[in-house]
């Protein structure tokens, strides 16, 4: 497995700087440029981090889906490592959605949580990707683990369109869509611009996090590979010294 090249490190650092600048600018836009919503007032500003975190989680889960298919087709370790990295980062954003939602809901709805279609399907999505990580930790054989989790990663993604459509198909406590919601829906143009800009910042952050997690995973695999080689070499030495390998292991 190749180590990170100098240009790779430089582009990684550049990406971190770009993400930090975008996040700072998004923070400024959320609190100083976006207009205050008439009925909810200041609390509505949670919208910018809540909605964009949900979209970012969906993109991360899409990466898991594509990487899982690529793994099953090409059996490349990188695809499996990418799927794992994206699943973890997706869970980070999914967690933000599940926590910021109730913080917003309590003062507006008067309740922290309700089991409507949107909230339930989002919670199920979170549980599915927690299970994905659990599954990975339970299977010891690396190739079996990669195949099983790739199949599961494809299956788990089916909940993402369900979450998206839930407020269109069912009557929910959760508000109806303000973007792509059809007649009667819509968003103030400045609010819309701030929302998409914040999403861009979160996508940059997601890329930084996935990149780091991917690097960690590849390093771990390299360590495991060297450990195997060291073990094999020791076994070989013991056998050549005339001692049965099984006895030496004990």
């Amino acid at each position: 497995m190749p180590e990170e090249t100098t240009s790779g490190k430089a582009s990684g650092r550049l990406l971190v700087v770009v993400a930090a600048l975008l996040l700072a600018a998004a923070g400024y836009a959320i609190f100083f440029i976006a207009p205050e919503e008439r009925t909810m007032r200041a609390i509505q500003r949670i919208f910018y981090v809540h909605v964009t975190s949900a979209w970012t989680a969906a993109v991360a889960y899409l990466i898991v889906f594509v990487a899982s298919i690529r793994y099953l087709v090409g059996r490349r370790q990188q695809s499996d490592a990418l799927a794992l990295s994206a699943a973890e980062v997706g869970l980070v954003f999914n967690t933000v959605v599940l926590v910021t939602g109730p913080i917003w809901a309590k003062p507006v709805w008067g309740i922290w949580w309700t089991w409507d279609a949107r909230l339930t399907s989002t919670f199920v999505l979170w549980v599915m990707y927690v299970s994905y990580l659990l599954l990975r930790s339970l299977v010891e054989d690396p190739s079996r683990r990669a195949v099983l989790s790739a199949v599961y990663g494809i299956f788990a993604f089916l909940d993402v369109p369900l979450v998206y459509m839930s407020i269109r198909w069912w009557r929910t406590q959760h508000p109806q869509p303000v973007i792509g919601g059809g007649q009667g829906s819509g968003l103030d143009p400045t609010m819309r611009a701030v929302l998409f800009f914040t999403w861009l910042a979160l996508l940059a952050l997601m890329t930084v996090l996935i990149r780091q997690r991917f690097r960690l995973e590849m390093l771990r695999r390299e360590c495991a590979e060297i450990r195997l080689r060291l073990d094999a070499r020791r076994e070989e030495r013991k056998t050549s010294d005339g001692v049965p390998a099984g006895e030496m292991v004990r």
Partner: protein
Amino acid sequence: MKNFESLFAAYMVFWAVVFGYQFSIERQLSRAMEELRKLKAQLGGER
């Protein structure tokens, strides 16, 4: 500002989750790099 505490809490949660994750990855990365360095030294030493 009405409901300022909730607004503040939501953004704090966001940063806490993101930074917490980032911090944990950084720590694991430095541990993995150290382990790799040791393993490579072992691999070289046992030749």
